[in-house]
């Protein structure tokens, strides 16, 4: 009965209070699962926050995790986007080696991906990019040729497509 391990996307609507994130995260980490991506922020209602969690687990454990999360008193609502049409976004900052002679090449690549240059140093550029995972991976591949000094990600946020109530 070994289930497939797969990528799961979960939106958790919680109380916007201290300690809440810890409760949510520890329920997942306690079972030995790694959280691939996590982001939190207040919602249209400032007393609530929405957490987007992406993790790799088998379906059976996933069901347990969602049920356990639902049981937490600080959790208002859980939406499983794993098999739902949804939009996922992540903002990535790339700090790339770009000595003067390469700078225009790097800028051209950034433009191609509709990314913007947010900081310029003597020998490096910081690029801010957002988009789908494919797009980010494509950009990363191209930038690698110049030497990436640092990648910083916000963690993915997600929302259901259409007017599905989330």
């Amino acid at each position, binding site marked *: 009965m070994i289930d497939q391990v797969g990528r799961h996307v979960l939106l958790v609507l919680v109380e916007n209070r*201290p300690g809440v994130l810890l409760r949510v995260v520890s329920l997942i980490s*306690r079972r030995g699962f790694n959280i691939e991506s996590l982001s939190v922020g207040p919602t249209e209602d400032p007393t609530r926050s929405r957490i987007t969690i992406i993790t790799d687990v088998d379906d059976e454990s996933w069901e*347990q995790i969602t049920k356990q999360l*639902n*049981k937490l*008193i*600080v*959790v*208002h609502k859980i939406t499983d986007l794993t098999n739902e049409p949804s939009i996922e976004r992540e903002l990535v900052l790339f700090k790339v080696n770009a000595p003067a002679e390469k700078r225009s090449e790097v800028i051209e690549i950034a433009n191609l991906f509709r990314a913007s240059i947010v900081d310029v140093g003597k020998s490096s550029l910081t690029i801010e990019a957002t988009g789908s995972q494919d797009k980010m991976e494509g950009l990363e591949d191209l930038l690698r040729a110049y030497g990436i000094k640092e990648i910083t990600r916000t963690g993915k946020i997600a929302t259901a497509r259409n007017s599905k109530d989330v």
Partner: protein
Amino acid sequence: MADEKKQQKGTVAIAGAPRGLGSKNPKQGQTMTGAQALIASLEAEGVEVIFGYPGGQTIKMYDALYDSTQLRHVLARHEQGAVHEADGYARATGRVGVAFATSGPGATNTVTGIATAYMDSIPLVVITGQVPRAMVGSDSFQESDIVGMTMSVVKHSYLMQSSENIARTVREAFHIAKTGRPGPVLIDVPSDLLDEEVLFEYPDDVNIPSYRPTYRGNVKQTKAAARLIADAKRPVLYVGGGVVSSGASAEVTELARSMRIPVVTTLMAKGAVPSSEPLNLGLAGMHGSRYASWALDKSDLIIACGARFSDRVTGDINSFAPEAKVIHIDIDPVEIDKVREAQVPIVGDVKRVVTSLTLELEKIDAHPDTQAWIELIGEWRKQFPLYDESVGDLPDEVVPEIAMMKLSELLDPEASIVVTEVGQHQMWAAQFIERELPRTFLSSGGLGTMGFGFPAAVGAAFGCPDKTIVCIAGDGSFQMNMQEMATAAINDVPVKVVIVDNRALGMVRQWQTLFYNKRYSASELDSVPDFVKIADAYGWKAERVERPEDVVPAIKRMLSDEGSYLIDLVISRDQNVYPMVRPGKGLDDVIGVIDSGEGRTMEEGGAR
């Protein structure tokens, strides 16, 4: 709506309102200190007893408590003892148990008690002192992050941030502890809040939109369950602790009787269905009888009521009850499909669901044909008794099984509560002590906490002064919290303790006998201390019993004595608990079953 309210009140797990006066309390609307507000909140909630231990960060609470005429504070001798006492009080009475501890070491001492209550879904409110807010996080003296440490063993917890929230937080904590699936709630109170001036307004209602347990079972599923029961040939009711917390004993027993369905119980549910009910087969699983285990294992329909398919019951889950469909009734959706897939899951309060289920069964005029099944189980019951003389115990030794049977005969099941520690003695007690009522057999089922039983017995004695409280302990377990003898002695609450004394950590030693070539690594205790002298030092009466003929007279002396009394019951180290399902194996792979009065069947080659 009114009807709905009334029905909700009827069920322990549902009624969330204060037991006390709530907003009608006499202090409502007064201005007072945070410490006074905390105490007034507990009074408004209807608390009668608090088990605790003071310290620097709770001294203000204790000062306010000094003025309370309603609250009785029981000074334990260890914070672990205090929490187990509150737990025993809760198990025996069905009320919320309350414990106090100070910050730092006081708080960390509560962790085992909280975890024990969590595993067995016992409603507790544990209030800990914390260093003042300005010092939190600075490694100040006696600071510990108790909210963080207990996060995975509480139903909910609060780090109080403002004195205005004291009343509301206490109200919420009690509501959460006792509704839905009950459990422990921790409130950590920074001590500076206790000095602030607050206007005391105790609320009656709580508003927690994110907490709405499901009480009423799904109608469609209930109908589906009724149809399965009507068609079943070999059904079995698998009754767990949820039946006790929901107060559903009468309903479940009636369901068994009206449909003629055999019952097996978990350790937590002992007493939920009377032992005298012929359909009740008692404990199944690791040390359950062969007939109870087989009834589960060979059934075609398991009706699980407030039970969670613990590995101690099912053995190897992959070979468990291969032909059974499962109806799973539980208030906690997490339990559904967690271990065993349910064909018909019903999330709801057991009492309500079983009531609707019984109505539905009447409606469809269900009469499952279980006669052959009951007869078959009856034959197993004759063939595989839990004890008979054919096992060849020595005539000059105290036999634990017989001692338990005698004790059971001498106890009034309506007026006694039996509390156990953890180990072999716990299993003998579960096998041989007969119980007629729920909340009269208390044991640490989920966590298996040695050191729970004795303080829990003390707590039960505070909650049920009209009942005889008997703690069945092992010599190992008793030593874990025996300082609580002082708590019983000083407060004049009589507790009877029977130490089944094998001078060993018997259950560990049993495993070493059976599976580790009798290599008794760290499992033998020797005859230290002298429990009779210890009892004497605490002002208890006590005697040692070494001969079989002395057992009954000694128990009689113990039970007829007014005060606390200890019997040090000396048994052989080599007594083992049987039957025993081989660890990790299915319910069929059992050692030590008695077959047709031919002694125990022991497979050779015990070592794995």
